[in-house]
């Protein structure tokens, strides 16, 4: 019986073995390569106490543990990706031993090769755009809770014609009308920023090989004020990066009500599973 297992980070092609020297992985474990079929699997030996199925299920509920594991996983993949084409594997993919990993490299070799062909010489860049709170407030009420517009707020005194059939219905009708107007203004503001987001995305997509939308981030997690109107990833050829970044800067200058944040280069995490590439014209599907 063994009380260890093998944690798989990703699979590289043509990795110089020296590139892994001194690399530390999850739980402080050393990282090594398992080579088979012309591919190198990046792995660590981990304890089943922490990475067995039951332990993993519990540990993934622990944010501190999840963060440590995610950062370690990323550090290994990122380091390898700077040295050779690297296909990251979903976090927490565990095998019994090196022999099983080698078997997977052999049996899944075609699939990894296809993935690696799609990402070699390319990196992922993240772009997030936020509408500043004032850009969302057509009425300028100063409500800062932009991520969750308060549908009951912002009642403005306005003259309303009496349209009710009975005099007693006037006040209620006027109130409902104000509510409707307010909702309409917010909807208009929301539509404007959605159009801006779509425009930004389309412009960036022109400078990318493929794109993918991530779900909008919860402001509680990002710690970011303002409504996130775009959270997308772009796969770029290495020689596209400079031009892409210039476009992001131009967008930022052109749209003062929008904050643009760029992260990268990332290993191409978001561009793995679609064998034929993600359609660049993908509609806004981030909202649930």
């Amino acid at each position, binding site marked *: 019986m063994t009380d260890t*297992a093998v944690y798989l980070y*990703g*699979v590289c092609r043509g990795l110089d073995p020296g590139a892994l020297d001194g690399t530390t992985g999850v739980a402080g474990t050393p990282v090594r390569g398992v080579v088979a079929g012309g591919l190198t699997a990046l792995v660590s030996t981990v304890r*089943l106490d922490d*990475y*067995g*199925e039951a332990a*993993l*299920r519990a540990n*993934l*509920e*622990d*944010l501190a543990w*999840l963060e440590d594991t*995610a*950062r370690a*996983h*990323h550090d290994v993949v*990122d380091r390898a990706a*700077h040295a050779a084409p690297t*296909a*990251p*594997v*979903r*976090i*927490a*993919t*565990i*095998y*019994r031993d090196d022999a099983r990993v080698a078997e*997977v490299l052999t049996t*899944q070799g075609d699939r*990894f090769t296809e*993935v690696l062909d799609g990402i070699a010489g390319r990196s*992922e860049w*993240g772009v997030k755009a936020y509408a500043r709170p004032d850009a969302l407030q057509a009425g300028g009420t100063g409500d800062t809770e932009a991520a969750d517009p308060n549908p009951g707020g912002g009642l403005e005194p306005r003259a309303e014609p009496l349209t009710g059939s009975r005099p007693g219905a006037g006040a209620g009708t006027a109130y409902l009308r104000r509510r409707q107007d307010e909702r309409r203004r917010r909807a208009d503001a929301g539509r404007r920023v959605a159009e801006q987001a779509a425009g930004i995305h389309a412009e960036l997509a022109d400078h990318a090989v493929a794109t993918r939308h*991530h*779900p909008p*981030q*919860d402001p*509680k*997690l*990002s*710690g*970011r004020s303002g409504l996130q109107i775009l959270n997308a*990833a772009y796969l770029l050829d290495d020689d596209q*990066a*400079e031009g892409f*970044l210039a476009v992001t800067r131009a967008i930022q200058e052109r749209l003062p009500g929008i904050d*643009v*944040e*760029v*992260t*990268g*280069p990332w290993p191409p*995490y*978001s*561009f*793995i*599973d679609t064998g034929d590439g993600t359609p660049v014209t993908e509609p806004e599907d981030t909202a649930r």
Partner: protein
Amino acid sequence: MTAVLDTGGDAPMERIALVDLLDRLLSGGVVITGDLVISVADIDLVQVSLRALITSVRSELLGEEEL
């Protein structure tokens, strides 16, 4: 938070926001069946981890507000 722009080849990014990392690690990467954690490695992982995130962040925020 300012934009993280790493235009150089090997310079590591500044401290990466966890939320950006999890966008990628929980839904990206090659999905292959492991030996030990078949259900966790699939969609369950996202659900389980998001529950952890939301719970932890809520308690953190509550803690900060009390300071």
